[in-house]
């Protein structure tokens, strides 16, 4: 399966006499985890993501264990002489798919982001939002081991944002690592495994006590059967056995589809008794910000 991507004492500056943009960064991104990177503007978030995506080589330190990587930039004004579907097919093959697979995946992802009407539109004529959908689709279509999202939600409409949230959930459920930056502090809240803050040119892990603690909308799933499999438990906020053989799971809404699919296809399949909107898992007062 995928290996863990490790940054050891990584620093990055542009030019041998340039200012250090980031320095002394130690970071491990394990397979199947969702990592959020925060920081004020101009602190080096994008540089860190470029190093994570393999676009920038570290000026010092080491990066090891890189899985197959995909990157989504914040803006994708790609005035390339391709149609949306043609471009995605090319990118799919660059990601390692065969041409028919890539063409199929391109259609499927354009459809998922409700952009199939633009499949034959030249990239140069796409709106900003549709361009961003193409940028997101090229990263998702090859199911990368590491997905790096630099404010990828910016410019997407609400439906596409939700779809991207779900796609991120599916990626981590399938064992891929996802690292993202987004200006919305509630983005994927409740599903994030680690939050790192870029400050003063280095990276600090936010301790759980000061975690966002503003979990997004959750869903309660009641299932019957043996205890839920570990890949499901990884996506749940809380899991309690309310009665023998009955489990109540609280799941971030973005991951509900993935959790239900995992439960229904588990061996033995679990019986889903009830799915309902839930209040987020309660925090002890004081840690709530």
């Amino acid at each position, binding site marked *: 399966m995928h290996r863990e991507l490790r940054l050891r004492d990584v620093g990055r500056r*542009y*030019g041998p006499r340039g200012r250090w943009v980031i320095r002394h960064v130690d970071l491990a991104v394990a397979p199947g985890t969702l990592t959020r990177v925060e920081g004020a503007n101009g602190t080096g978030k994008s540089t860190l993501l*470029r190093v994570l*995506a*393999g*676009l*920038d*080589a570290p*000026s010092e330190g080491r990066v090891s264990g890189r899985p*197959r*990587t*995909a*990157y*989504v*930039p914040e*803006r*994708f*004004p*790609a*005035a*390339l*002489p*391709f149609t949306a579907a043609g471009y995605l097919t*090319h*990118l799919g*093959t*660059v*990601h*390692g798919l065969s041409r028919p697979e890539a063409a199929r995946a391109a259609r499927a992802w354009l459809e998922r982001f409700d952009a199939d009407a633009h499949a034959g539109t030249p990239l140069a004529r796409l709106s900003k939002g549709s361009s961003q959908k193409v*940028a997101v689709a*090229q*990263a998702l279509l*090859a199911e*990368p081991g590491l997905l*790096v999202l630099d404010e990828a939600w910016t410019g997407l409409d609400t439906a596409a944002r939700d779809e991207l949230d779900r796609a991120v959930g599916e990626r981590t459920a399938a064992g891929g690592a996802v690292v993202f930056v987004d200006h919305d502090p509630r983005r994927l809240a409740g599903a994030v495994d680690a939050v790192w803050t870029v400050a003063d040119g280095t990276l600090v892990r936010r301790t759980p006590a000061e975690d966002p603690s503003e979990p997004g909308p959750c869903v309660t799933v009641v299932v019957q059967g043996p205890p839920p499999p570990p890949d499901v438990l990884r996506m749940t906020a809380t899991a309690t056995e309310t009665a023998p053989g009955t489990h109540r799971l609280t799941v971030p809404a973005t991951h509900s589809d993935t959790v239900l699919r995992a439960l229904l296809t588990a061996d033995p399949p679990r019986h889903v008794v009830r799915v309902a909107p839930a209040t987020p898992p309660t925090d002890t007062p004081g840690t709530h910000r």
Partner: protein
Amino acid sequence: MTALLRYQAALLLRSQRWLPPVILYAAFLAVGVQAGQPVLDSLGYAAAGLLPVAAWLVRICVTGEPPAARAVVAAAAGPARAHLACLLVAAATATVLGTAAVVLVSLVGDPVGTDHRTRVPLLPAAGAGLLAVLVCVLLGTAVGALTAWPLLRSTGRAVPALLLAALLALVVTGSPAQAAVEGLVTGSQSGKVPLPLLPLAAAALLTAGATALACALTARRAP
């Protein structure tokens, strides 16, 4: 790598940015190559003209993508490999163009020396022309790679540097391109077809070095 090459080739072909250098090269040939001229002279002329064209094609391929699109491909394939694909596609395009020029020149040229009396065997002459074309394509690729991103970023410096380097590569003694072209011209005077293998080897080495340098710097320079 095949997928990257297909992508870059499609990008170059569909962008139609190859048209200006190709048209200019065709005009260059139309002006300088006439039916009945000694074939080795014309081949030398065709090869020399291809060097700046190859450098220009490299520039077109390297600057063909907006930074965001380049980043997306570089993440998927690695920045060095993505850059290598740009250079290879440009060199291949220049080679196709040069091969067409050699065929054309061999057909319209007269298989004689400069004195219009000594016979020059046509097929070996065309072969020598093809080798000289390869030398110029390789050196042009090196010039293009060394005068574009990631080595030179601002267009204001890169374009004059490209023109100057291309000119120097053609005239400075010791340059493989100069040696290959010179070999064809003196071969035409003496009526002996040269075999520019040494310039070819030197050009291959130089270009490999330039390509390795450019590819290694892609992840180190600012985007």
